[in-house]
């Protein structure tokens, strides 16, 4: 480990060996972080490395199973965000922590935030005209982030913890925010800066603490060229552990694509995404958390409307105002959260048959025999363990996920939108899902496959689009998609114009 802090005793905040387990998942094994006065320390890690758990422990939302957190040399007893504040540690969370039905002024009163300094910081951060009688509900998301930050600054914290603060901000506000944050450190305070964005980290951070699989693997000084090293640290040594079977590279067919997306934009996260998805192709989507991928899938599945851009299915332009429109156009979403897709207290058979029913008949009796045959075939194909088939909630996560895919196979799928289908699933089931995705593609389906596990791109996809900051920054063929290439691209380090 290069260049560890020489003396941790003068650290304002010193966390060592912090561990946390949720059921069977060890979210944090041994996380450490030191911040001195006058420093901005970046906290980095790939998706699932344990950043958010660590942040929650530091701010008292969660209790650690093991390890120590010392603030100004004393063992921290922080048990809630309010407690953290008494210790001089003020967090600004990723989601705004303002009360939507109260005015700005009432929100300040709620947390005993002094008004004068708040006004000063709000105008410093670029919103001098903010009306403090306005309801939080009526303000745009970017303003909320500014209000949240100004409120934290007005408390004059010793340690400011900023979690993905700039994710929802337009560029001009980002510049102001970075300037203010750096000035805090220069005035002798400490800042913990959780972010994916190397550009911002290079601009304001002194050091970076890197998490991987719940472990702090490095604490390095920020210097030119450190980005590559940090990416390697986030990946770890075992890059090529997963064995990818050789697949012939598919030439991109010349015919009309099954799904064409052009300049798609919605909300503040998704700004400009374009790609083509062909019949028989599995197109991977690679993105760090919150780069617009959730919004992309929502738009394609008809859950929300795009504010700009076009979606074409088989050459015909489409607008979806309801999930039923997307399903009718052959686009079917398997959401990341299985609980959103399944009827948890109904049987496996019923869950698979639901989309079928929409086709069999709208009214009248359900043709049981036809249903049984199709459902049976789907269960067979997927090797779903049906010992607990009476209620889906009693299946394992992997088997539940297979049910969410099985329902669309029974129906005969044209375009499948998979959103992180293998999260929290054992390796055997993962393999079955990859094989299933390939089979579907070979049978002519088009599959859009977002995954938070970079290794899966090689295992299941033909190509991958990389989204950073709401835009497509790269398109990579599966054979070139090793994890470090994908990781560099996902962090926006290798941006190039997509073909």
């Amino acid at each position, binding site marked *: 480990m290069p260049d560890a802090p020489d003396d941790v005793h003068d650290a304002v905040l010193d966390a060592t060996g912090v561990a946390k387990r949720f059921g069977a998942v060890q979210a944090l094994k041994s996380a450490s972080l030191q911040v001195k006065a006058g420093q901005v320390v970046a906290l980095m890690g790939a998706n699932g490395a344990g950043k958010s758990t660590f942040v929650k422990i530091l701010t008292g939302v969660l209790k650690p199973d093991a390890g120590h957190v010392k603030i100004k040399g004393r063992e921290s007893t922080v048990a*809630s965000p309010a407690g953290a504040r008494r210790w001089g540690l003020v967090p600004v969370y990723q989601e705004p922590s303002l*009360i939507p039905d109260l005015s700005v002024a009432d929100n300040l009163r709620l947390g005993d935030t002094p008004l004068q300094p708040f006004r000063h910081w709000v105008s410093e951060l670029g919103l001098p005209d903010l009306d403090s009688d306005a309801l939080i509900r009526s303000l745009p998301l970017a303003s909320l982030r500014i209000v949240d930050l100004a409120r934290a600054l007005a408390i004059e914290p010793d340690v400011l913890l900023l979690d993905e603060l700039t994710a929802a901000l337009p560029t001009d506000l980002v510049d102001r925010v970075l300037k203010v944050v750096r000035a805090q450190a220069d005035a002798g305070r400490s800042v913990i800066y959780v972010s994916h964005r190397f550009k911002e980290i290079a601009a304001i951070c002194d050091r970076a603490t890197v998490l991987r699989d719940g472990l702090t693997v490095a604490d390095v000084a920020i210097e030119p060229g450190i980005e590559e090293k940090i990416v390697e640290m986030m990946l770890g040594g075992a890059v090529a552990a997963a064995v990818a079977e050789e697949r012939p590279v598919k030439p991109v067919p010349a015919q009309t694509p099954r799904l064409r997306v052009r300049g798609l934009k919605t909300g503040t996260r998704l700004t400009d995404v374009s790609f083509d998805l062909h019949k028989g192709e599995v197109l991977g989507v690679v993105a760090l958390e919150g780069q617009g991928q959730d919004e992309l899938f929502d738009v394609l599945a008809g859950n929300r409307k795009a504010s700009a851009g076009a979606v074409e299915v088989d050459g015909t332009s489409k607008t979806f105002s309801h999930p039923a429109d997307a399903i009718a156009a052959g686009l079917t979403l398997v959401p990341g959260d299985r609980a959103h897709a399944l009827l948890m207290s109904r049987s496996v058979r019923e869950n698979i048959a639901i989309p079928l029913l929409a086709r069999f008949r709208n009214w009248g009796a359900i043709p049981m025999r036809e249903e049984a045959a199709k459902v049976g075939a789907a269960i067979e194909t997927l090797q779903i363990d049906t010992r607990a088939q009476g209620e889906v909630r009693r299946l394992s996560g992997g088997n539940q996920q297979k049910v969410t895919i099985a329902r669309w196979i029974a129906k005969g799928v044209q375009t499948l939108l998979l959103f992180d289908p293998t999260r929290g699933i054992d390796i055997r089931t993962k393999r079955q899902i990859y094989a299933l995705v390939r089979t579907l593609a070979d049978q002519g389906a088009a599959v859009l496959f977002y995954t938070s596990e970079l290794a899966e791109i090689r295992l299941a996809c033909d190509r991958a689009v990389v989204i950073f900051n709401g835009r497509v920054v790269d398109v990579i063929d599966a054979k070139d998609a090793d994890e470090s290439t994908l990781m560099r691209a996902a962090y926006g380090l290798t941006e190039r114009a997509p073909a």
Partner: protein
Amino acid sequence: MKRWIEANSWTLGLAALLVALLLATKLIQPGFGASGLDSLARAALPFALATVGMAIVVLAGGIDLSIAAMMAVASVTGAVLMAGASDAQAVLVVIAVLALGLAMGAINGVLIVASRVPDIVVTLAMLFVWQGVALLILNAPGGGAAGWLRAMGAGGVPLPGLGWLPRGIVFLAIVTALIWLPIRRSKLGLRLYAIGSDPMAAFRSGVPVGQTRIAAYALCGLFAALGGLSVTMGTGIGEPIPGPYLLASVAAVVLGGVVLGGGRGGLIGPILAVFILRTVRMDLTLLSVDPNVAAIVEGTIMVAVVMFGAVLATRGRRT
């Protein structure tokens, strides 16, 4: 000023509706006057107090199904202790009953916060518990009430310049203002709205969510005790079987512009809604409409008004 009107448009609309209904009453029954207004106020008082209690809990993002049962406990406890007591002793009894109400509500709140069982389940269970307690104390209507207490709810209070107001309304206004205004202006008031609006954001803003929730239920218990006493005040005895206060209070809260789920609304709207619902009922009776038909009309008015409000709200957001 414009902003104030916008923020309180629902309440102002309800007030206009109530005035229109009272004028309609005057048309239906030209003799409607002081005594009619007085009996309306007396009949509405327990409903109004229950509604205030329910509104506080709903604002804080909860619901209390045990409110009518708590009113019964308060009513019988007051009546049993006051039977044969002197006026001075009766003052102590009233104070004790109010404390009992606070305690019952706090028990509801503590159970909800500590058990993490949904409020609707806990308070449904407590409905049966408080109901049993009320019947244990007094298994049939009985007991008594101090003379001064009975006098508080009936008759009128002369108001210089305005003529005259029923005591029931004055009592309601004073009690609600005395309890709620200081709270609304304090940190506790903000916290009640905060946990109703977004409990997670409230927690992150440093609000003690559990304590605030308990306080909301305790306040609801306090108003339930006042409601129970107002029943005894009106009839002179304790009633172990509660009236239809539970559903009526939820109805008035919704009609009064408090969003079920919490965070939005106030207390004046629900109080106006109580009087609107009582006046509608009175008018239908005066028109000698079949009581069963009257019930259908009342329900229809509620749905229609709330839907109308929702339409106006979406319009307002679009422009």
